[in-house]
């Protein structure tokens, strides 16, 4: 527990300690925008709309939510198969 806290604190400090470079506001854009698309535009290539464009209003939020639930369920189901819960006080067979 202590070790986990230490690791999490270290990771938090690492990510949060130094401020954003001076004179530049944090945009929180992805590196696809800040790096990939920037260099591509300079070279005359621009990103096209996806074939199935879910980036419209709150639709993307919905799709992310569904993807997370499905992914979380698959991960959770397999996790339970691989790491069954430990028997503890109060369990049927223990009593």
């Amino acid at each position, binding site marked *: 527990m202590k070790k986990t806290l230490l690791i999490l604190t270290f990771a938090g400090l690492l990510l949060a300690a130094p401020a954003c470079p001076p004179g530049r506001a*944090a945009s929180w854009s992805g590196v696809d925008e800040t790096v990939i698309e920037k260099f591509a535009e300079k070279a005359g290539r621009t990103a096209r709309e996806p074939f199935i464009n879910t*980036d419209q209003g709150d639709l993307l939020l919905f799709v992310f939510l569904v993807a997370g639930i499905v992914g979380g369920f698959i991960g959770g189901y397999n996790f339970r198969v*691989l790491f069954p819960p430990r028997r503890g006080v109060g369990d049927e067979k223990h009593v």
Partner: protein
Amino acid sequence: MNGIWTKRRNVIRWAAAVAATAGTLIALPAQAFAMHISEGILPAFWAVLWYAVAIPFVALGLRELQRRSVEFPYFKPLVGLVGAAVFLISCMPIPVPTAGTCSHPAGTGLAAILIGPGLTVVVASIALTLQALFLAHGGLTTLGANIVSMGVAGAYVGYGAYWIIRRLGLPWVMAAFLAGLLSDWATYAMTSVELAAALHGGGSFSGMFSLILIAFVPTQLPLGIFEGILCVGALKFVRSRKPELLRMAAAGGAA
């Protein structure tokens, strides 16, 4: 009586898990902050070339899945768990205050240790295809390039780092940390190669490559360290809860 309490406890656990998942996902921003190469960025020649590079690796991984599923009974659930983890990790944007931008880890270093690099390419390909189709994350024309950078480069570098460090007799913590760190950095180095190769035009390839790689540094330097820590934490959990999974993984993974 005890049975009723056990059932109630299970229902509460399920409800808490669903609420936690939903809460986490609702907190995600509406815009997809991706690191993958977006649709239409690569010219047709390069898009086809990266598909041609990726396909043999995917085929190799599929053959390995068939073989190892027969050998080990718990292998399919392990691949399912690792696949879901790679999918979720690789579409989870993490804000990096040092750069004021967002990016995400890939999870391919950890996956390669657990299920081997061949199968990591397969799970990464599935994750990237779903993201390109439904999450406006990456693209179908750039799917080959994204598989090569995240799947192939990330998995094989992470696996290689872990394998070499363990063979040198160094501690597993160091091996896991460097596997996570280097797999993340290798992914971005490969993305830089792909972009520089396609976009350098009349200029120098190495000049363009260096510029793109340097642009990735403020975001990916801390995120790579984070991925290394993530890899150590996950492997520590597996080692303490079910070490036999690592013995099974050793047949095709590096653990």
